């Protein structure tokens, strides 16, 4: 069986006065039906551009390099244009962003924005679409959905706005949901609720989920697999338990050591120095090498991808077995 989403060699280029940069540089991954893949990395890693590229929502200056493909149920969604693109976006593949306040239309009520999506994709009358919108808002945990329907985004809390965003995204029962840091701006209590809503859709109707986060801790108990992105490249990809149990890339180990833990004996987190460099100054060898505590001579060359085990891929010379 082939995957629901199959992304191959995704490259996003942005021409700048000083030369063209490639902030997403050959990213490949897949998401199955009913599977949650977490895409994890720091700001500047290329996570959001990856999401936007899949929906053809890249900023005007950016473009996809030839050879980039993303098959959704076998169809290349990067090649869709016009009506076919409109019929796919929102219907088969949907997205929620971090900042629900900026994503919602401030002059339309919450409910009307949900109804709009229902009407755009499902054969329903306006009254039917309204009823469906109310029930969606209820399913997303909005108390008194019929009342909340008429509220404007500014009258809702951040968590409530994200629930509305989720109702819009799930309105047409898409096959794939891209969730780009959906809970990073929210309280931990609301974060748990929002993630559970997404997970519920995954379990009950086989929704495929690409969950993007900077926090490995958030994805640990939810994602089936994790892909770690650094400087435009996936540096490690593995089933979640294996990634946490036997992280093979020093960057993954650094991210894990930075998570503050609530359970178990107290230990201070170990900060990883530095941050993701600007795409214009990525080294030609291993891109993590300048921050890597374990770098050695070989790191001047870009590491090949090796597989410590069947489903585990890592881009590091150390993982090659005997350095």
């Amino acid at each position: 069986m082939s995957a629901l989403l199959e992304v191959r060699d995704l490259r996003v280029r942005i021409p700048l006065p000083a030369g063209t940069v490639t902030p997403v540089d050959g990213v490949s991954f897949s998401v199955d039906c009913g599977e949650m893949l977490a895409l994890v990395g720091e700001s500047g890693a290329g996570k959001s551009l990856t999401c936007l590229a899949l929906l053809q929502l890249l900023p005007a200056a950016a473009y996809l390099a030839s050879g980039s493909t993303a098959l959704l149920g076998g169809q290349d969604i990067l090649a869709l244009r016009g009506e076919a693109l409109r019929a796919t976006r929102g219907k088969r593949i949907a997205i929620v962003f971090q900042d629900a306040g900026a994503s919602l239309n401030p002059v339309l009520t919450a409910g009307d924005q949900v109804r709009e999506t229902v009407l755009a994709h499902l054969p329903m009358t306006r009254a039917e679409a309204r009823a469906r919108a109310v029930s969606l808002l209820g399913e997303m945990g909005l108390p008194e959905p019929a009342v909340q329907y008429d509220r404007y985004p500014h009258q809702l809390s951040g968590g409530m706005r994200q629930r509305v965003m989720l109702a819009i995204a799930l309105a047409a029962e898409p096959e794939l949901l891209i969730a780009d840091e959906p809970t990073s701006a929210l309280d931990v209590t609301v974060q748990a609720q929002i993630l559970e809503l997404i997970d519920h859709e995954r379990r009950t109707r086989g929704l495929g989920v690409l969950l993007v986060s900077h926090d490995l801790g958030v994805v640990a108990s939810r994602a089936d697999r994790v892909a770690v992105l650094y400087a435009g490249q996936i540096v490690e990809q593995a089933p979640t338990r294996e990634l946490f149990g036997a992280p093979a890339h020093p960057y993954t180990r650094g991210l894990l050591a930075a998570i503050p833990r609530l359970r178990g004996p107290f230990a201070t987190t170990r900060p990883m120095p530095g941050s993701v460099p600007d795409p214009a100054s990525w080294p030609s060898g291993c891109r993590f090498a300048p921050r890597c505590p374990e770098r050695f001579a070989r790191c001047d060359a870009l590491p090949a991808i090796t597989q410590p085990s069947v489903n585990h891929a890592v881009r590091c010379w150390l993982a090659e077995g005997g350095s």
Partner: protein
Amino acid sequence: MTEPLLLVRNLSVEYRERPLFGHGRRVPAVEGVSLEIARGETLALVGESGSGKSSLAQAIVRLVDVSSGEIRFAGEDLLAARGENLRRLRRGVQIVFQDSATALNPRMLVGDAVAEGLIIHDLVAPGERAGRVAQLLEEVGLDQGLAGRYPRDLSGGQRQRVGIARALAVDPALLICDEPVSALDVSIQSQILALLRELQQRRGLACLFIAHDLAVVRQIAQRTMVMYLGRVVESGPTEALLASPQHPYTQALIASAPDPDPSTREAPPALRSDLSAGRPEAGCPFEPRCTHPRRDARCRTERPELNQAGGTSTACHYSP
């Protein structure tokens, strides 16, 4: 016993709604909160958005008006202070905000932003200012060269370091950190927490640390107070509070924290809805969201007061 560095007693802050017509209702943001911070100590304030954490912090630096209560800093009445006296006291209490992008003036060079406090409080001669700024930037782990850059040229983590350098410039005794790491990547969060710990040790700084994430709080605070709708519902030594939380709200906050362990499967969310669930006129503020098995009519009519038992205090009729 020596007087604590900061003493807050029975503090209340309220805002008035400003409707288009008629009189606005008074909305309490902070209700009868008392706390103490000793020199060099870190106290964390924890709660969801809307719990009153930031209002309390802003009241302490006199950015919002207090409706009743008392604030004493280093033995002096902070609320009665005016003019030159207030300016002097404010030097001792500095604040670092969550959103470093809006906290810094976008048209001001980083170096000038850090020097502002030095100028206002006339701390160093003009000729020595640049040197002092360079020293401060170095202390927070920034390259001196950044003094000549604008905030937009900096990453979120770097801007937060600038915010800290700005606060340190006037050599405060108390640093109020209002969600200083909530907007940052986990990796950068860890760097800033390490920096704050280091500064506290080196300078003997006291800190009021505001956050919604208990795992972050555990990294830095000796004591923790949990707030719900403007009231303190539980407080105690951080490790004791995490090991045996008494208040159902504290328990729910702990249960809501994501577990960075893939071998646990996530339990159903511990709390429904958020603070917009409602503000009861009487009784326990947490009652509408509470799942305590003994929750009853008393919770809807009688407001629970903070009761001390062991090292911690809890405001719940049925806990501990």
